[in-house]
């Protein structure tokens, strides 16, 4: 039998990935507050999962609206309780599937949606009034929200009955996720348009999910993830306040999105520290006294970037530990990754196992039986304080730079994350940071694997092109011209972009057409 390669020292490291030193033991800390009480360190509800489990919400989307609809129905039939739509890159950046810039990308990292009919197909048979829909969409959030409202309208479901979330977090796109299209200030303007639109038309909708997930994936540590994300959250509230959006309402509907990474103790501490920090920001910085506004609700996803290409079965264990951290940390919603994520798009079996992982945590592990089960544990309280201190320092630095917009324009968070990603890589290569099956305990003889990523249809792009072009032909050229002119006029006139886009979507304009008009009016971001 071939030996496993690389055997690191057989003792615990005593240091979190953020560089926080962990002592071998801690004395008992002060007694913590109760869950459900300001500043919500221990959770936003007194009874947490005794009232209701977190939402089982798997991020999915690939191929076509029809293929994705099938996957949605499959996941719902398997016990998933919320939907989360992954859009392909052309859709995320504002190109129709038949745009030359979309070639090779259609249906790859998500579902292509270019028209209101696509949205109807995507949601066919999905009970829109009972299943909440989360859409990971940013630059084109206003267009996709418009398609959703128009598609629901065609089905007779009024907008105010819809429940769900648009990510609508542009600042982190410039920092790390990179599906930007319009310039920073213009993007922020659309963000606030979405706040206003949702407040008036879809009151139960979350108009933003301020996301640390992608910064963590890009290489940040836990402290930076929380620091940069809360700094973005502050920037959004300031932008909303400038436009006189009532912050007491907005803060109630604001949500967050965190990464749930490998270091169980630091991650649990991170979730707790993030809640405490946000609660005090809402109260002290924005002077909002009502504690209901200070509850930080969040979605969590296990860390895709920790999953290994080598021995992918091991990823099931990583996902389990990370998901446990999110549950112990009091998440409201969770996505658990498929084991084949480092190889490609999750196949049906790995998507099922991923969902089962959180169902096992919910129904078999007992982790949800009590709110904040680790609260009061000396090490957890000490780590929570340490993450909080680190984040406060970071936010202080960003304030000193003139706020997050300025910091992003100066490239500060981008550089800090790159630095950390490089440090991580060097630690992996020196063996200081162990990745089982990659730089340690690697079975060099093994080639076989049980991972089976999804295989997309080779005719996908051609089929899609045909459908879209048929739809284009059905429209009258005069009507399209009128719709374009109306949209350009409304945007030029400074009216709420989303309102105008809903009319355009109802009339039949495509995503690419709408985005072109916006880009002509607002410009495009260039790095």
């Amino acid at each position, binding site marked *: 039998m071939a030996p496993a390669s690389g055997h690191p020292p057989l003792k615990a490291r005593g240091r979190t990935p953020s560089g926080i030193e962990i002592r071998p033991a801690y004395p008992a800390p002060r007694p913590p507050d109760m869950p459900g009480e300001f500043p919500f360190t221990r959770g936003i509800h007194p009874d947490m999962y005794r009232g209701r489990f977190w939402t089982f919400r798997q991020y999915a989307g690939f191929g076509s609206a029809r293929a994705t609809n099938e996957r949605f129905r499959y996941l719902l039939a398997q016990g998933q309780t919320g939907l989360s739509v992954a859009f392909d*890159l052309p859709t995320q950046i504002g190109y129709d599937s038949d745009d030359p810039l979309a070639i*090779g*990308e259609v249906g790859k990292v998500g579902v292509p949606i270019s028209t209101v009919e696509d949205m109807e197909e995507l949601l066919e048979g999905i009970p829109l009034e009972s299943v909440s829909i989360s859409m990971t969409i940013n630059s084109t959030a206003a267009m996709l929200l418009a398609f959703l409202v128009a598609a629901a309208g065609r089905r007779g479901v009024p907008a105010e009955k819809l429940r769900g979330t648009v990510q609508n977090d542009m600042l982190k796109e410039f920092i790390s996720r990179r599906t930007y299209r319009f310039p920073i200030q213009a993007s922020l303007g659309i963000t606030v348009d979405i706040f206003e639109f949702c407040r008036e038309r879809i009151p139960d909708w979350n108009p933003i999910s301020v996301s640390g997930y992608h910064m963590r994936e890009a290489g940040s540590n836990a402290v930076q993830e929380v620091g940069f994300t809360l700094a973005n959250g502050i920037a959004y509230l300031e932008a909303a306040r400038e436009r006189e959006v009532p912050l007491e309402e907005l803060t109630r509907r604001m949500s967050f999105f965190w990464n749930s990474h490998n270091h169980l103790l630091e991650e649990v501490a991170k979730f707790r520290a993030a809640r405490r920090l946000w609660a005090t920001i809402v109260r002290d910085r924005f002077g909002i006294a009502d504690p209901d506004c200070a509850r930080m609700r969040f979605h969590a996803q296990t860390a895709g*970037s920790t999953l*290994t290409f*080598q021995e992918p079965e091991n990823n099931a264990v990583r996902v389990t530990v990370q998901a446990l951290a999110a549950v112990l940390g009091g998440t409201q919603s969770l996505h658990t990754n498929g084991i084949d994520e480092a190889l490609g798009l999750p196949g049906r079996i790995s998507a099922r196992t991923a969902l089962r992982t959180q169902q096992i945590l919910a129904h078999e592990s007992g982790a949800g039986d009590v709110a904040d089960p680790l609260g009061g544990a000396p090490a957890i309280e000490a780590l929570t304080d340490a993450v909080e201190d680190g984040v406060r320092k970071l936010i202080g630095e960003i304030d000193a730079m003139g706020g997050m917009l300025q910091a992003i324009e100066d490239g500060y968070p981008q550089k800090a994350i790159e630095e950390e990603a490089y440090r991580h890589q060097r630690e992996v*290569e020196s063996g200081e940071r162990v990745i089982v099956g990659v730089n340690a305990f690697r079975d060099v003889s093994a080639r076989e694997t049980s991972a089976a990523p999804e295989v997309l249809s080779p005719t996908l792009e051609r089929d899609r092109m045909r459908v879209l072009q048929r739809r284009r032909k059905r429209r009258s050229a005069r009507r399209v011209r009128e719709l374009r002119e109306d949209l350009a006029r409304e945007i030029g006139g400074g009216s709420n972009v989303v309102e105008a886009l809903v009319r355009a979507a109802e009339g039949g304009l495509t995503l690419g057409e709408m985005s072109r008009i916006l880009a002509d009016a607002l410009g495009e971001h260039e790095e």
Partner: protein
Amino acid sequence: MSARKAGKPPRPIKVLLAKPGLDGHDRGIQVIIRGLRDAGMEVIYTGLRVTPKAVALAAAQEDVDAVGVSNLSGAHLTVLPETARSLEEAGVDLSRVVLFGGGTIPEADHRSLRKAGYRALFGPGTPLADIVSFLEEEVSR
């Protein structure tokens, strides 16, 4: 043995790194930029949202020794071959200039990409040292 291996490099290895297309997963390429620079190479990065033609033009103008193309969005079977074609059209001789790729590229796709001109494809978890030694060997050949 080449001059480079004898320890007298005529100039540092010059590498163009590129992410053609819409893909924005740039953690890997950012790490590689720094890793290659730390290994003494000269690295030019095209940035995001560039066309294969623009990549080819830059490679030709800068007279690079190697071109590395990254893709993690599943579009590798379109983006990578098209970049290879554009390089040839721009007059870049792929027998002299080392073309290599990286990202989430399944092994099943390696053969067709090698045929398109890629001398190596690096997957997730590849140590930087492997890429450095690959370039040192291939470029000096």
